[in-house]
């Protein structure tokens, strides 16, 4: 029983991820994680930091452009196909 309450950091971080994915945990898992986070500052940091990353991930805007050569090549291929099958 003592072991049941005392989960490892490996298990705790897994439960943190699972909660982020599923939105919830079983009652047992919730209790195990709660106790672990109460005593383990490192896993608490892991939780806060991964939440922070995930919360911000969506503002990810890319403004890459095709190289001139690549665009040219695609243009040729697509236009050939259009002419061939119009």
């Amino acid at each position, binding site marked *: 029983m003592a072991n049941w309450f005392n989960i*490892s*950091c*490996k298990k705790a971080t897994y439960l943190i991820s699972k909660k982020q*994915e599923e939105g919830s945990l079983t009652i047992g898992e919730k209790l195990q994680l709660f106790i672990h986070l109460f005593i383990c500052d*490192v896993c608490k940091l892991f939780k*806060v930091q991964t939440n922070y990353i995930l919360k911000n991930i969506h503002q990810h805007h*890319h403004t890459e452009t095709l190289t001139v050569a690549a665009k040219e090549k695609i243009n040729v291929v*697509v236009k050939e196909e259009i002419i061939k099958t119009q």
Partner: protein
Amino acid sequence: MDANRKLNATSWVDNYGDALYSYTLARVNNAAQAEDIVQETFLSAWRARDTYNGTASEKTWLYTICKNKIIDYYRKASTNKEVLAKEDETEDYFFGDDGRHWDNDKKPQSWGVDYSKNIENKEFYSILKKCKDKLKEVQQSVFTMKYLEDIDTDEICETLGITVQNYWVLIHRAKIQLRTCLEKNWINA
């Protein structure tokens, strides 16, 4: 055939080439592969021109086709890869052999940022992309599908042919590594 008139196929590459390329490159992490996907998107769109009914805009329609091409790419990439979660040393690396505690050199450090604020920092996103590119292919696919594509867990599992437990493990490993990579290259840069 009426609807076809709303499609301006000869201008697709000029009008949408860069946008679709940006969108694709953020998801497949390989310029040549992204170019192929963009080209295939236009070719497939052209071949399917009769199915375009004008309900969605031309642009939206092309994005939908592109997104399906990207999912096909993930699916193909996953079939030849070892997807099984146990074949991986990620946790041993971070938690040592018994897994009880974080390895002293690899445990999360305090970042000294206000976690409640949004990240308004362009650099974060370019580093995030580099960190994401370093992930193992299957972790990267899972992470991208979930957090960039907003595809739900069931569909990801079905596309990649993995169990939901396997999915949790893969996405968890992706997070552990992204966090560490960001700490190293963004916070402590």
